[in-house]
């Protein structure tokens, strides 16, 4: 196609006086996993729901799969070709996983095989269990399966792993990677740094309705991550004292000695100084993470619950 799967230009969304999305522009390319990373209330769901044609926009221009979301005909065509996992997914509570998937399948002209979906998602044993009796992780799996029931080209996953335990979260990541493997475009929102870093081909950091930065994880780290750090594991006071003579910014942390650096020359200086004194050290190089990039750009961290801190 060569055409962007999602194209957003100068999108603004107001709820009364509140500006939830404040003039953002970005594009999502076919076949990529694109992540919206930001804290609670940043405007992630609002943006996603506009793309899913579930909410009108205030101003700006948005096309999804080449169709205008503000257009009724466009909306119809978009809905046929997207898959949606809403934040806090729920299905009919007294229907089983299978019955729910069959319901969603019946909404489309050419649905995927529900039987196959159940197998792919390992739901065979739970297929006859009522939805309200499923664990959070299984509910979410049903939700992802439901998002794929129409063989969509573009899949929206709004906080797919929020509230799941780490193991289930990793399993869900595998599923999401699998989607990219099948050539689908994935639009993901999350407030987990690790999730964005692990999964996304490109990340847009969204803070208070604005995109603070956008790029591949590597680009973001390179541009905004700043210094890398040498960690002298259990270096102790001797190492700290030695390095202190050469570097102002050396720091001690639980017996480890941390030395941020910007050029390789600094590393040489440090190592020479230590060997002159006959100090043997174990060391590791640490690159900045997406978390540090985010902290730097937003001025705060995000807690596990997604709150700005």
């Amino acid at each position, binding site marked *: 196609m060569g055409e962007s799967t999602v194209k957003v230009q100068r999108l603004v969304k107001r*709820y009364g006086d509140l500006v939830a999305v404040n003039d953002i522009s970005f594009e999502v390319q076919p076949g990529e996993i694109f992540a919206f990373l930001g804290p609670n209330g940043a405007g992630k769901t609002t943006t996603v*729901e506009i793309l*899913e*044609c*579930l*909410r*009108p926009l205030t101003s700006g221009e948005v096309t999804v799969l080449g169709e205008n979301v503000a257009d009724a005909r466009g909306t*119809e065509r978009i*809905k*046929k070709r*997207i898959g*949606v996992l*809403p934040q*806090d*997914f*729920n*299905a*009919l*509570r*007294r*229907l089983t996983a299978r*019955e*729910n998937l*069959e*319901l*969603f399948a*019946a*909404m*489309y002209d050419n649905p995927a095989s529900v039987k196959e979906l159940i197998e792919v998602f390992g739901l065979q044993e739970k297929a006859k269990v*009522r939805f309200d009796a499923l664990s959070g992780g299984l509910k979410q799996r049903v939700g992802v399966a*439901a998002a794929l029931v*129409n063989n969509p080209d573009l899949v929206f996953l709004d906080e797919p792993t929020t509230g799941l335990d780490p193991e289930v979260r990793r399993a869900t990541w595998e599923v999401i990677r699998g989607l990219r493997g099948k050539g689908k475009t994935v639009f993901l929102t999350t407030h987990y740094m690790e999730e964005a870093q692990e999964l996304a081909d490109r990340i847009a950091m969204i803070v208070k309705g604005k995109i603070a930065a956008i790029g591949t994880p590597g680009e973001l780290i390179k541009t905004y991550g700043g210094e890398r750090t040498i960690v002298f594991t259990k270096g102790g006071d001797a190492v700290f004292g030695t390095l202190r003579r050469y570097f102002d910014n050396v720091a001690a942390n639980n017996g480890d000695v941390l030395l941020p650096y910007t050029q390789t020359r600094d590393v040489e200086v440090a190592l020479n100084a230590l060997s002159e004194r006959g100090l043997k050290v174990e060391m590791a190089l640490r690159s900045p993470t997406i978390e540090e990039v985010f902290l730097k750009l937003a001025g705060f961290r995000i807690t596990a619950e997604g709150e700005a801190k």
Partner: protein
Amino acid sequence: MSRITAIFKAITLNWLRSRSGLFFSFLFPVMFLLVFGSIFGNTNSGGYTLYVQNKDACLGSPTCLSLIFIGALNSTKVVVVNSPILAPSVNVTTFIQSHSSFFGGNPRVLVIPSGFGANVSRGLPVNVTYISSPADQLGPVVGGVISDVANGINFQLAGARPVVGLSHESSSARALKNVDFYVPGLTAAFMMTNGVIGLTSIASEFRRSGVTKRLSATPLRKYEWIVGNVLSQAVLALLLALVMITLAKVAYQSNVTLDGYTIAALVFGAILFSGIGMTLAGLVKDPEAASGLGNAIAFPMMFLSGTYWPVDIMPSFLQSFARVLPLTYFSDGLRDSMILGNYSAALTNMLVVSALAVIFVLLGAKVTVWKEK
């Protein structure tokens, strides 16, 4: 179409698996019917007592024609003329007052005026007077029998027809029991609560849990969603009516009928009350508040619409209030077709119900959120 079918199936199944739903929608009405049936059920199986005062006497003995009239009434077997009949000297008003009882209401009295026989034989108009209490649910039935009998005598005299044996097949003259009156009333009332309370809380729960929003992200259209919900309620309503009628027939040998009119009325009623349910759920976001509002509307409506007692015995301001309640028209209509065989009245009521149904379904569609703000 296939989407509507899928929604219909899913919603119905989801509902049938709800124990509290089943309880309030089926068991509860059935319990009511059993209670009402065993209190008031079979009290009238021997026919309805009618006091007659015959003032038409010639030289102290009743005229032949007045005796024929009384005999014809008795031969209907629906009406039992109380014997002995009241003497011409009895003051009817005093008699009624002294014979009233709390449960039975006032006695039904027919007064045959003096000159009845003479006028009838000369072909002159003559009026008999029939007095029954508004609280007496069977009063109008007995009235119908009297007028049937009077007509029969007219025909006979005018020679317009050969002698008409007054068969009790004439619809309004079927032998009715008190329980017959509760079947349409209770069915109507519980269909109303199913829609106004049940569907309201179900639909607002779908909205709160995000089911509605998730479905709106598929090609499903709003009208398909609404039609699926309403259809599901309509089928449940027919099921409820079937259960109530079967139970009344089996347990109390009730005579209610389930004819085409009644089925049509049930369908329109179900659509009407689902429309109200969808409207309330659309207007009120919070499920608790929505079902509270449903209750606040349903209970007064249930008691003021003639489900348990006739509207006519209520104070006049409540009567005018009853006239604006949809349930009044629905339960009156059901009664008209299910027990009274009064199809012209049934049709009028059905028209009101179907017009309201259209209005509320459209309103429900308008306030159901398919695209957020």
